[in-house]
């Protein structure tokens, strides 16, 4: 096991808080009926592992602002449950086959069960947030619940935006459209909510949580772009979804949007036709062609540069946000995130 050097606090804390969260998670995935068609599949995705970035960020932020690990734990657990709920539903609607090296839930159990399981995970997350009142008191519990409601709403709206693009076969999207969608769909529950709730719990005050929106947005977007880049160019075993899966799905990544903008008229027409087909009719040759066109038009390079820029800006915002806090592992973790987000494979 490699030593966690001071220069890289991220893996160490991910492991530590990740384990904390996993153990606490089990309280909510316990033996209950109906097992076979609900609670067993419910436990499936959470047990498959995952990076645990979101719950770690939540706990680390809370601790950086002065809370104990227990105070932030349940909110972190809730977040991980929500995350898995989104994954389940995502996989259904993206018609994906694989998740974290194994078949997707709907491939195993059918769509109806999968959808139900996703709902159940979300409600379990809610349960965890309500249980916060045991350790946080009524006022903070309410505030965290409100934050969760906002997070859920933003994620759903962001998701609806993207779904709308796919359904309407939108091909004239701008970078600003993309940024707005990612802000809502991904950043809120990946980086903004964990930071806000962490700060809320740590300081006990909800004054000016909006400043975390900027930081969370910049960090989360860099994270998402890197995620999408890995789907095209990363190691599929480590990444967890099939290679080029995003192209198969017609997902509007920054690379795809850039390709649509830079392609010649003929290329754009072929691309639009591909995007207009239902997934089962799409062909491997088209997917490979698109991937190659992205290289030719420098779309991946462009996205890398954008992610680079946003991570840099996140680093800058981070400095302003956390400068006044005492030095701690947690603070160093957060400050190292912008770099880590880009460097991971």
């Amino acid at each position, binding site marked *: 096991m490699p030593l966690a050097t001071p220069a890289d606090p991220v893996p160490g804390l991910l492991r530590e808080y990740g384990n904390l969260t996993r153990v606490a998670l089990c309280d909510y995935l316990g033996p209950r009926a109906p097992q076979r068609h609900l609670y067993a599949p419910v436990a499936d995705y959470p047990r498959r592992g995952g990076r645990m970035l979101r719950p770690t960020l939540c706990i680390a932020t809370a601790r950086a602002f002065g809370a104990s690990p227990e105070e932030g734990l349940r909110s972190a657990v809730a977040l991980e449950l929500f995350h898995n709920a989104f994954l389940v539903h995502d996989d259904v609607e993206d018609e994906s086959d694989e998740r974290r090296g194994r078949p997707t839930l709907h491939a195993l159990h059918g769509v109806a069960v999968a959808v139900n399981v996703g709902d159940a995970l979300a409600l379990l997350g809610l349960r965890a947030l309500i249980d916060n009142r045991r350790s946080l008191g009524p006022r903070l519990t309410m505030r965290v619940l409100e934050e969760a409601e906002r997070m859920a709403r933003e994620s759903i709206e962001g998701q609806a935006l993207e779904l709308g693009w796919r359904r309407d076969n939108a091909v004239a999207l*701008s970078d*600003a*459209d993309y940024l707005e969608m990612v802000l809502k769909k991904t950043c809120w529950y990946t980086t903004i909510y964990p930071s806000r709730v962490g700060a809320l719990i740590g300081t006990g005050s909800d*004054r*000016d949580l909006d*400043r975390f929106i900027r930081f969370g947005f910049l960090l989360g977007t860099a994270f998402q772009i890197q995620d999408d880049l890995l789907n095209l160019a990363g190691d599929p075993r480590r990444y967890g979804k099939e290679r080029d899966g995003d192209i198969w799905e017609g997902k509007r990544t920054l690379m795809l949007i850039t390709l649509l903008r830079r392609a010649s008229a003929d290329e754009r027409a072929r691309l639009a036709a591909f995007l207009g087909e239902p997934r089962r009719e799409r062909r491997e040759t088209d997917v490979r062609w698109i991937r190659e066109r992205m290289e030719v038009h420098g779309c991946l390079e462009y996205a890398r540069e954008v992610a680079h820029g946003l991570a840099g800006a996140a680093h800058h915002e981070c400095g302003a946000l956390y400068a006044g806090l005492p030095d701690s592992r947690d603070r160093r973790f957060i400050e190292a995130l912008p770099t880590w987000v880009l460097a991971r494979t």
Partner: protein
Amino acid sequence: MTAPIKVAVVGGGCASIAAAFELTRREHEGRYQVTVYQIGWRLGGKGASARGPGGRIEEHGLHVWMGWYENAFRLVRECYAELGRDPRTCPIADWREAFAPAPFVGVAEHDGNGRWNVWKSLVPPTDGLPGDPPPDGPRWSMRDYLVRTAVLLRGLFQALQTARDGPSASDGAGAGEPAPEAVLGGIARLLEYGELATLAGLIQGAALLETVMGSLARYPENVVLRFLDSLATNARSLLQARLATEPGLRRIWDVIDVTLATLRGEVRFGIVTDPRGFDAIDEYDCREWLLLNGASERSVDSGFVRALYDLGFSYEDGDPARPRVAAGQAVRGVVRAFFTYRGAFFWKMQAGMGEVVFAPFYEVLRRRGVRFEFFHRLTNVALGDDAESPHVAALEFDVQAEILGGREYEPLIEVGGLPCWPATPDWRQLVEGVRLEQEGWQLESHWERRKARTRTLRVTDDFDLVLLGVGIGAIPEVCREIVARDPRWRAMVDHVKTVATQAFQVWLRADMKELGWPDAPVTLSGFVEPFDTWADMSHLIPRERWPHAPRALAYFCNVLPDADAPATQLRPAYAAEQRARVRANAVHFLNHDVVHLWPRAALAPGRFRWDLLVDSADGTAGSAPERGEARFATQFWTANVNPSDRYTLSLPGSNAYRISPLDRTYDNLTIAGDWTDGGFNAGCVEAAVMSGRLAAHAVAGAPRLEDIVGFDHP
């Protein structure tokens, strides 16, 4: 938590209030403790208004807002939202009750035969509302500009049709673009006459031009210029035959001619690629520049162009024979006004500017913890000794009057459910107020030097940063130290000039139709000197408290030429003399000129129907109504001759001498006002608000410069 930074804001006009509003936003978390120092008893500066006898609104002049005032509207809307007035008790609770669209504009033209023609136009409304969040993506592009040209021309064609065929059922029915059928029908009618067949060609040409301009870099410059030239020649030759007989056509031609000349100039002078944008042609006067680019003398002297000059009071020294405005600033202004307005072209306030704008801001700012020190006249800005870090060490004030009991002065009164500013200070709140009133202290007058005491504020003890929001007319006196030792400030006060203005308001017992103006209420310019601008403000009458309501209300305003040399303006009697002069001007105007607009307002040539004027004292016991011209004394008029009340001009070549609020020569001082280099360098509310927001940025780093709408703009 460190102690808050004390910001002394001097002056309570648009710029200062905008800056104070920005500095006390929630996100600053109380970092800035703002105190506003104001002469007299009212906020507003050139925008102040008051309530006089009968609760009548008394303004400095005509304050019509324009649909492109994005920063001003945004702040006003935020202010009202924060104010949260109860609509059940307050007649103006929402910003949309404070401002109403006024799409009807008018231009008056003399036909050379002693007759005045009025050209009325409905400027088509557009999507959205001013102050809405800015649209994503490119802000204002050349392509937008040209599209808007086509839309505007269409609106003018509509007006042409109305002028020919009289008002029809579909005429001016208000909001909404004219239906395609109506436009096509109008064109079809015109096409009957054969030689107008290429009117469609003109429109097609404009569409082609749109494509060309959309990617100008791809076309060689000489090709573009040739295209523009041929468009102009074709159009001119087409319409030449009809110019003499169809005044309506000639007006449209004037606009087309001027527009084509502008486009030609933009290409020829390389404005499209010049990093200075429109500033590149600021050395030229606008009309001069249009002539250089092929506009005809007639178009450049048309009512349309003159009206634009009038709106900006662009007459050097107020001399109507010397219209001058920096070409770059003028074109920028026209582009913004015509092509970026949202909702309506003009927006009229539904009460005085004091109660629509300054009272709400006053209330919100007070709630946020801003302190207001009224009756403070700034007398000197004293610099510190440190030559390496020049800074403001002290601010010297005359405290004109003390408040009884050392309390805070309560400046507002209620009229008709609205908080308003009174026409005179509340003497009862002032120490020895009765005596001051009897002695007739003119507390807003530059020439009034009586005071209760002096007061000196010192840096670090009483203030940390200074935001100077007084009008530039006051700068030579109050910043004499800075002007003496800083050549840039000296150049600024030498080159950035101002002009005095005059205005009067009349309340009438007949309405406009009875007086012979058949159309909808209008804002009209280009009329005769000395009152070239008229606005029908009858909608304000319900806001006033008339025992017997007048039927109409008209505002007139104009520049007031300096009759005396600057030195003689220092005489104490100057203000009263100018006031008398304005009265004489107004009386003459009503007797001789207004009849061209209101044909039935004259008894006989040279005799206005003075009995038309309504006085709030009419019908009250003990009043002996005046007769004839003397009746004018019951109306309202003003000579705006206080140096700080003078209107800021944008003379050719003056732009370069303006100083920006962002300039940090004095490390604890920033300036704000429509006279600064604030991005839009002309005298208007929007320029002042932009400048105020810039000054806030200079102090606090917020708002972000990209957030100041129109700051980054060619």
